[in-house]
């Protein structure tokens, strides 16, 4: 591939998009090389493996920085992201729009609220709820043991390589926040569906506090996932303690061969989500409208590109009840929300064929909506065999919500329930099936900081816990 022209470098002209690398806090200005398929070509600096890691022979730059100072830096970074005076987010957004499957308006709104992950109460919620306070980050916490023994423990800064997901920009923000709070060193591998958000955040942080130890604790770079020339070298305990992977089945399976003593996998597993709608929804036209709107909100989060987005919705009632719900749901799928657009991508050819066939199997199957991306609902006697995607929901009538629990499993992350009062009687059974998160219907999007994620406390899991006994 030919080197990119200066015109293409600024991302305003047609031609390969230029991807920025951050190397230990600084923008890599080195020579560039081509990546990606012909229709989605981009350039990135040639990766210098020596520069993206931190030698284990010395502590990471931020190992001794007090937590309070890191929190201040993050809060300031959040303010800077909100203001975006340097135009770094705007630049990243401009480039994202060209390659992301998400519509510009959804990306814009997502970028506009990236700063929310950097708010002080949320940061302390993670520190306090996941680690029990900053003391254990900043020093040794005394632990009283049986038989009068006393020991001390510390959450020691780790060396992390993150394989981040690109389906929602918030993932990059969350990874930077968690990485910073650990005080450790962090290499972020950029996914081809979000090559820009992480570096825009890191550059914003660098502008807030040039040369700050936390800034110098981050690198972010692209290499092709599974590239042995890179991964077999970097994924070693000599450089990193943990691989923090967000989804990407092939990436995780590829990385598994490097996992071994001293190099651990922390996996935010790829997930799918569902909803359970109790018969209470049919009490009145108002309750039905409320449930359908909440169900639509959960299904359309990031236009259904996110793991929390509901794809199967089980309705407690008759087929007619399910049809009434489905019709309303379909209408509400076409409504723009904070993290979704009224229009979505057109339904792909393969799904269209699956659905066309089901249309001809009426009345067992019924379909509302078209393939224009505004939303489509399939009502079927049992869950469809394919994966509903792109604002498509499969509504399945059940005689009791308990029956729907059998459709939750190890791959199920979030279950939205309507009404709230039904949650207590379902949550144990759902947890038993493998579910990680039960929410009020309509609240699937936006996990609050400080709670567990995918079945564990991330910050706690990222730290290296060291004892003085």
């Amino acid at each position, binding site marked *: 591939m030919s080197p990119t022209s200066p015109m293409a470098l600024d991302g305003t002209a047609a031609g390969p998009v230029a991807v920025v690398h951050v190397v230990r806090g600084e923008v890599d200005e080195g020579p560039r090389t081509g990546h990606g398929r012909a229709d989605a070509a981009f350039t990135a600096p040639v990766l210098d493996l020596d520069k993206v890691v931190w030698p284990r022979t010395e502590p990471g730059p931020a190992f001794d920085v007090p937590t309070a100072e890191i929190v201040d830096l993050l809060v300031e970074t959040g303010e800077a992201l909100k203001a975006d005076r340097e135009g770094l987010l705007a630049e990243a957004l401009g480039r994202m729009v060209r390659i992301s499957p998400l519509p510009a308006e959804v990306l814009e709104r997502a970028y506009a609220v990236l700063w929310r992950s950097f708010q002080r109460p949320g940061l302390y919620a993670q520190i306090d709820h996941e680690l029990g306070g900053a003391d254990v980050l900043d020093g040794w916490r005394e632990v009283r043991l049986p038989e009068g023994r006393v020991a001390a423990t510390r959450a020691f800064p780790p060396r992390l390589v993150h394989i981040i997901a*690109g*389906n929602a920009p918030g993932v990059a923000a969350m990874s930077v926040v968690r990485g910073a709070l650990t005080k450790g060193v962090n290499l972020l591998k950029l996914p081809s569906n979000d090559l820009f958000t992480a570096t825009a955040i890191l550059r914003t942080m660098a502008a807030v506090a040039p040369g700050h130890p936390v800034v110098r604790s981050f690198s972010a770079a692209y290499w092709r996932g599974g590239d042995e020339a890179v991964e077999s070298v970097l994924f070693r305990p000599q450089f990193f303690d943990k691989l923090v992977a967000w989804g*990407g089945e092939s990436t995780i399976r590829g990385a598994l061969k490097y996992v071994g003593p001293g190099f651990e996998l922390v996996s935010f597993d790829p997930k799918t989500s569902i909803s359970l709608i109790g018969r209470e929804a049919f009490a009145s036209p108002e309750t039905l409208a409320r449930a359908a709107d909440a169900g639509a909100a959960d299904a359309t989060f990031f236009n259904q590109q*996110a793991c929390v987005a509901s794809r199967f919705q089980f309705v407690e009632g008759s087929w007619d009840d399910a049809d009434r719900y489905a019709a309303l749901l379909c209408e509400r799928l076409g409504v723009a929300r904070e993290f979704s657009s009224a229009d979505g991508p057109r339904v792909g050819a393969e799904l269209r064929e699956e659905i066309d066939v089901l249309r001809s199997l009426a009345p067992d199957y019924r379909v509302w909506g078209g393939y224009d991306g505004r939303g489509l609902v399939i009502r079927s006697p049992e869950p469809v*065999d394919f994966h509903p995607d792109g604002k498509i929901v499969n509504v399945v009538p059940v005689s009791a919500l308990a029956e729907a629990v059998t459709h939750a499993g190890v791959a199920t992350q979030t279950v939205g329930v309507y009404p709230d009062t039904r949650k207590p009687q379902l949550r144990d059974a759902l947890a038993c099936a493998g579910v990680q998160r039960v929410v009020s219907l309509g609240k699937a999007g936006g996990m609050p900081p400080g709670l567990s994620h995918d079945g564990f406390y991330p910050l706690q899991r990222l730290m290296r816990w060291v004892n003085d006994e």
Partner: protein
Amino acid sequence: MASAREQIRSLVLSGHTYDQPAATVRELQLEAAREAFTAHRERIPLLRTRADETGIREITGPDDLVPLLFSHTSYKSYPLSFLTGGRWDRLLRWYSTVSVVEPGDVDIDGVNDIDEWTDRVTAAGHRPYITSGTSGKVSFLNCDASDLSFLHDILENLTCWPDPLPPEPTRRGYLLAPASGPMRSIDGYRWHAEVFARPGETRLLTEDPLRVSELMSSALLRRRMAEGTATPQEISSFENVSGAREAELGAAMDRIVDDIAAHRDEPMLIAGMNNQQFALIQELRARGVQDGSLHPDTLVLSGGGNKGRALPDDYQQQFAAFYDGVRRVRSYGMTELQGSCLACENGRYHVPPWVIPLILDQAGEKLLNPEQGVVEGRFAFLDVSLEGRWGGLISGDRVFVDFSPCDCGRAGPVVLPDIQRYGDLGGDDKITCAATLDSYVRGMIHG
């Protein structure tokens, strides 16, 4: 006057199937496409739906065909629960939406399993050819009686084209396949044996028929695993059954290898999918059978590509070396296509006149067919000969097609030998936290 489709079909008997002037073929094809569309739109609900949806009312040129193409998905779009729940009537109803079969044509009274179901469809004068994919779900591609006789005509007239083999039963036959079953390759091998092998002298890999339910069992187990209801014992027995079956077939293969080694000086028919052929060649070499040492009248049939790249990259070269000097059918084809694209003297695959090639962009949306020259893209086509189903299909193959006249002197278009599956060309490295259930099942069982 015969319809355009009949005229095109009759080319197979003409002795000049591939020697027609390009312009004449193109004109005839377009008329045949109109006839096929008109006829199938009436009988195949899925095509009707598609035509209504896309607003295509008539075929004025190849562009109009693109929105009407099906993908492989259509032919396996039945809910698995129809099988697990024994809803054979529903399955038939589904089948009637993707084929010309009418529910009333088939008696499914008392059907107990998917094999009986396919038998009943066959008894009604149709043949549901199956193909299996990585998901384990089987596709059903319908052929009617006239499609089968057309296939038979092709093999009698065009086997080993451009130097067709006389249809004489003079060979000792070896079919590396089950005795029977609704798979096009199995029927094809059997028919070749009837035409080219001595009666009663054909050896099979197994006397058992191919069972669709066995092919489906991995899909059904996957489903139970996804539901969380499969037990460790069930998974283990599945793997053991596969292992036992492989051992059994291995023993049968040994007997065939010995027999071929003993009769290497006689003309033979050796038919099998690429993976069986590859295993056979290794075994024969190990028994001391030299490359290029088989009788020159030996006929070799192979096919099936290199799914999942299970074979070494040079397997074709190895076939060519071992079978040097014998008669081989070299072709590019798939179950979805009636009669393959056959290799000319220059090794380029000529698209038969009943197939309109439609080279699309990778997304499968835009037609790229040039007037002349080579184009790279996704192989799609309309097979106008098909009566049992709509012949328009988008494949998963990345091909280079030359629309200029071929160096062999015949008109194009030809598919060039560098053929790959898009799936094998690598993904796009997009990472998302959203997943399908497959992530949690895959890798735990074979296939």
